[in-house]
């Protein structure tokens, strides 16, 4: 089994529902966003165009973070999900430096400035590096990752690309799906479709 996510960029409107749901569900601290949406404007008025790129851990096949982790705190499970054992992490941040997708965050357990609400404690991750784990606990219960579930425009699809009958495997076969930094051959498990050429 190879868990895979496909994100349809034509459907994404940059509402950040996924970002907020992920923060609440995973109780990530201030400044930490396991999932986020990057926004970019291009062109000149009146021909201005806005694009949205949802980002999260790409759960790479050839994961740089797994290779550089000195304590083996980061590993790939049998379903291709890159996971962090927070009890093993020593917080050296080598994986953050090595990650080509800026998907990892160091939990400094910073308190937010006065007036800014506290966004979760994440105490078990204090002093460690954290990131998206495709909502591992939800997957174990047979549910979808939170960001997939809450997307109001159904821009996200999640499944097993090794199963030919899975809708995600069909999308990968039948639609033009691309990955970020494809030329580097990191082998991301997050694909994008609806990309304009």
């Amino acid at each position, binding site marked *: 089994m190879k868990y895979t996510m496909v994100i349809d*960029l034509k459907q994404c409107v940059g509402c950040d529902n996924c970002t907020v749901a992920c923060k609440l569900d995973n109780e990530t601290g201030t400044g930490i966003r396991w999932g986020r949406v*990057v926004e*970019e*404007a*291009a*062109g000149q008025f009146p021909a201005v*165009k806005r*694009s949205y*790129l949802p*980002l999260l851990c790409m759960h790479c096949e050839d994961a*740089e973070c*797994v*290779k*550089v*982790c*000195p*304590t*083996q*705190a980061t590993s790939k499970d049998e379903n291709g999900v890159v996971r962090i054992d927070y*009890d*093993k*992490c*020593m*917080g*050296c*941040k*080598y994986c*953050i*430096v*090595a*990650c*080509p*997708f*800026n998907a990892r965050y*160091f*939990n*400094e357990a910073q308190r937010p400035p006065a007036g800014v609400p506290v966004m979760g404690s994440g105490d078990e991750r*204090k*002093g*460690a*590096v954290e990131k998206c784990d495709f909502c591992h606990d939800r997957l174990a219960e047979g549910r979808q990752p939170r960001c997939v579930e809450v997307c109001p425009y159904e821009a996200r699809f999640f499944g097993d690309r090794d199963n030919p009958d899975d809708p995600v495997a069909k999308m990968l076969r039948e639609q033009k799906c*691309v990955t*970020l*930094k*494809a030329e*580097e051959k990191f082998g991301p498990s997050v694909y*994008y479709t609806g*990309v*304009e*050429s």
Partner: protein
Amino acid sequence: MKPQAQKEWGTRVSLDFFLGGAGAGLIGAYLLAALLAGQRRLSLGILITGVVLVIFGALLLASELGRPANAVRSFLNAGTSWMARGAGLNFILVAVVVLLLIVERMGGGGWFDVLAVLAIVAAALVAAYPGLVLYSSRDIGLWRSAWLPLLFFVYSLASGVGLLVMADAWQSLSFGFSLAKVELGLVLAAALLLALYCSGIAGSKAAGVMQGWRQLIQGKLRVAFVTGGVAVGLAVPLFCFGDLTFAAREWAALLATAGTVGVLAGAFLVRYCLLRAACHEPLGFLSKAS
């Protein structure tokens, strides 16, 4: 989409690389010179200084860790992680030097040469690993130059030999050959490697490398890199050690000190600047799509 600057590693990591490199360079260069000169009585002060530099660097790195208690696990991934290898090599270097000192104080014997050679090899690897830690980050083009590990290695060696030249100038180590000449060669090698490295990254078309290069020569790192790393770190030592090698030795101790301070400043500032200027390559197709 713009390249993202690497913000995780800064002063403390570059200090660790610098101190560990200088300590290993000092130990390795001193033991090699002692073996070549046939000396069987080692300087406790020099070896302890080297060990203290290595340990202090490692402690600085430990202070950067979020969970230092887990650092003992860092020997586990030596198969792929240069940081894990570095941790193990630091430990081996310190242990071998302590053993060597014990053996030497007990009268030497056959183990002396074996341990000295082991310590030199371990010191060479400790001097080399920080460059390989950076080189193994595939996404940061500024670090993906084959010259970088070699440059870091030569800077470590130059730092160690510089400290030896200074010690020799103030209190003769009686090696029977000119350490200043060796140091002059190392500083020249560092200058050549830095030039080769810079010419490589200056010609790169990768967005992250271009942004990093701009930071080094035009941005906020310009003073540290150009004035500190190149002028103070290379030009001053070249003048001082050149004068020491080819001219009168009236001011030998002062020249050796000035040259060594220059080398040490350059070795630190170049590492610091290359860490701070590093950028991840942009994420890719979004800009093409828009």
